[in-house]
């Protein structure tokens, strides 16, 4: 298991290749990459991500550990950035490796759902009209209930 909370960019292709290499007991690898997209009404100048150093690492590690306990996984990778990002930048990625795809897919979705609402990150959108904190959505909280 690897958890990286970082300001700098990452290369998802390279991360996927490293994550996949040298495995003999794995039949499925799922990767997900989150990307900064434009907002609906105003052009996004930047997405600023604040976090809680110390707690972030602990919370994300606990979420990844829980995924390993619930599904039969060979490995888990979580990378999440903080700081100032712009449209098209990659914010985060998760990767799961399992013997079978069902475990890999479900665990990846679980990780995404929990990273969204239980890891201490806060997004702030900066547009020409000003900056505003992104509100948590009820759907994101509801998504946790299926697990």
């Amino acid at each position: 298991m690897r958890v990286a909370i970082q300001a700098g960019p990452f290369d998802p292709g390279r991360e996927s290749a490293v994550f996949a290499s040298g495995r003999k007991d794995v039949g499925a690898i799922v990767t997900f990459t989150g990307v900064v997209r434009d907002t609906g009404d105003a052009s996004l100048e930047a997405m600023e991500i604040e976090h809680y150093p110390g707690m972030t690492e602990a919370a994300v590690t606990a979420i990844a550990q829980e995924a390993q306990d619930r599904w039969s996984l060979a490995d888990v990778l979580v990378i999440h950035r903080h700081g100032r990002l712009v449209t098209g930048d990659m914010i985060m990625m998760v990767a799961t490796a399992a013997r079978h795809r069902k475990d890999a897919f479900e665990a990846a979705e679980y990780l995404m759902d929990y990273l969204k609402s239980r890891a201490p990150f806060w997004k702030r959108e900066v547009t020409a009209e000003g900056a505003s904190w992104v509100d948590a959505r009820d759907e994101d909280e509801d998504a946790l209930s299926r697990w």
Partner: protein
Amino acid sequence: MNVLYFAWVRERIGLPREEIDTSAATVADLVEELKGREERYAVAFSDLSALRVAIDQELSDFDAKLEGVREVAFFPPMTGG
């Protein structure tokens, strides 16, 4: 005890962290104490349903006891991913 604020809670209170000498028994008591200090705290803590709390870097709730606690953090619901 170290008290930390994040996102708009930090902006409304105007600082990211402070050392607070308190005898508050619970998080809710600490919130009441802070609200009584100055208007900016009263504004930041006006709607507790819009806030989350972590105790020693673990998510907790407003009824939690503060005895032996070193660090309390207040922040809005998280928006990672």
